[in-house]
């Protein structure tokens, strides 16, 4: 926030302003993924057999593990946000660290999955289904990495003592972003791995 103009915004107002901005941004993210979800709906109705047959190639166990990892990380994230609102900087740091590690664990599982696909000569150009699979999970993966970068910044700033019960907006905004990443995966998992 720029305070050079002399008219300082009151902290409560600044908080709700930042939060509104973040929610609007999350809305644009939904629209971004929305385009891909629309493509999914269109092609699924066009080629139901292809989706039925090829989704079996995906590794449900790994998908389920990743779902658990992300849901767990959303919990640690939420604990971290509540902790900083109560001024518990150390607990917040630990929770942020766990959340970040979950992000890396998710990426690791995804790496193994992608590797298995490539070794079976399954690539984005194999079929429409795998085009969708790689585009959806790839774009999601990109968001996981952005989330990790944001939360790492928050971790460093928390450890430097920048946040306390009076000012914790960036941690909360980072948390909102992380929940969105989690939420999108919760839709991706059944749509790609489970629906038969």
């Amino acid at each position, binding site marked *: 926030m720029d305070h050079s103009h002399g008219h300082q915004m009151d902290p409560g107002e600044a908080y709700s302003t930042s939060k509104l901005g973040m929610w609007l941004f999350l809305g644009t993210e939904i629209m971004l993924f929305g385009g891909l979800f629309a493509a999914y709906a269109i092609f699924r109705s066009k080629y139901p057999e*292809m989706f039925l047959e090829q989704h079996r190639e995906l590794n449900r166990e790994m998908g389920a593990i990743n779902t658990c990892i992300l849901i767990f990380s959303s919990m640690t994230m939420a604990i971290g946000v509540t902790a900083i609102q109560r001024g518990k900087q150390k607990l917040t740091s630990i929770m942020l660290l766990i959340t970040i590690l979950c992000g890396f664990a998710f990426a690791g599982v995804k790496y193994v999955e992608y590797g298995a696909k490539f070794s079976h000569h399954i690539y984005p150009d194999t079929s429409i289904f795998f085009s969708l699979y790689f585009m959806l999970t790839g774009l999601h993966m990109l968001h996981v990495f952005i989330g990790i970068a944001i939360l790492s910044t928050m971790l460093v700033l928390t450890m430097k003592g920048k946040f306390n019960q009076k000012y914790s907006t960036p941690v909360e905004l980072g948390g909102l972003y992380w929940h969105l990443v989690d939420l999108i995966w919760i839709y991706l998992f059944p749509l790609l791995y489970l629906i038969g």
Partner: protein
Amino acid sequence: MANNTIAEHVYVPFLEEKKGILSWLTTTDHKKIGILYLVSVSFFFLIAGTIALLMRFELLTPEADFVSPHVYNVLFTLHGSIMVFFFIVPGLAASFGNFLIPLMIGAPDVAFPKLNIGSYWLYILGTIILLFALLKPADTGWTFYTPYSANTDTDVVLMTFGVFVLGFSSILTGLNFIVTIHKMRAPGMTWHRLPLFIWASYATAILQLLATPVVGITLLLLIAERTLGVGFFDPAKGGDPVLFQNFFWFYSHPAVYIMIIPAMGVISEIIPVFARKPIFGYKAIAYSSLGIAFISFLVWAHHMFTSGISEVAATIFSFLTFLVAIPTAIKVFNWTATLYKGSIQLQSPMLYALGFIFLFTIGGLTGLFLGALAADIHLHDTYFVVAHMHYVMIGGTVMGFFGALHFWYPKWFGKMFNETVAKVAWFLIFVGFNVTFFPQFFLGVEGMPRRYATYPQEFKSLMSLSTYGSWILGVGILIMTVNLIAALFNGEKAPQNPYGSLSLEWQVPSPPPHENFHEIPHVTDWTYGYGKKS
């Protein structure tokens, strides 16, 4: 600041607050960021306008004797892409939006000043990337239709990536404006007291926020199509090229309202001031902006009547398209009602506003021809579309842009331009524009397709007439540009409120001080109470 309170109240115009190139590049002052946008978009407008003059020059004769057909393809791709992505989408919304929104609502700045300058740098970055790709050169037109864009040898990946970055800039600007309008209004500035330009900016920002991400993903998919071999748009792989058009127009139709709604906002500001009457139908105009924004999401397939969509879909989209005429006509009728029995002063901003009403109405009504299924089958991809599109975009948006330039110029730069020269320029622009584009309606009806460097002998007289018109238009814009630039150096000092507006931005000195208002104003009435004894 610690010295005393008196020092704070010395008036320093924002232009003189800090000096040097670096202070401009790193500024977070919405007024300076507005100028950065204004200079950038105007520069690209002049470049793309010059390219248009070259195209018209080629069309003076039926043969391709000035440039080859391939060069002509490159030229219209350049003209379209630069005009759309560098000028008209960011145009009014980012330049005047930045300058006016905080001033009009009584705020010291936008909600996120750093994000604001960040958006500008994203705009410049996207511009550089896209320009680089365009000059390689590119030949897809500004719409990147598959399958051609998936197969051409030109650098579509770089081009679409540039547009993607520009889209990001647009999203962040829209986000900033929405939050600003929600959170930064001065005490007493209720929603129904907001100037109509603010309502228009708000509707525009919603479109930027909701539609732009969809073109973002579309362009990412096109990039994936070319680099990873993804087949969403490739029939050989089970994809569908028409899907690209659906995605593309889902953004790009709302985008034409991103281009026009701010101009409508400008007209709503100019007309009451120069008619000395309260705006007629305030709420109707305000909500019709939101109405247009909403309906704009439901009409995209009217660009695709000849692309092989089903008859049922085409019929539905045709009817939905007619719906747009309702909120648009609400605006036009309310502006006209505002003029009725007003004390009209024909100064240059008002001339542009009247030009807008006249030309935009022609553009809007010819849009209905294209929205009608049977007529569209005949008129699709002809010069009729070119004429309609330019009546809306030049007759509408550019008239609004020029009107805004003349109206807020004294406020923004603290100088008065030569009014007589401004009127002469307006006359040449108005006449030149009509001579250029009106014949194109006839060309289209007679079946002349767009995007060709050559044409049959029988179209020579109308085509040449159109080219002569483009010269008049070009001279008019040149005179206007010189007039406005000259005024920066030798214009008279502008008074605080030369046009007698009641809006908040005119109640501070010209140019406004860095912090806009010494004290945040308390608003007690709407801004359109003209003609009452005070």
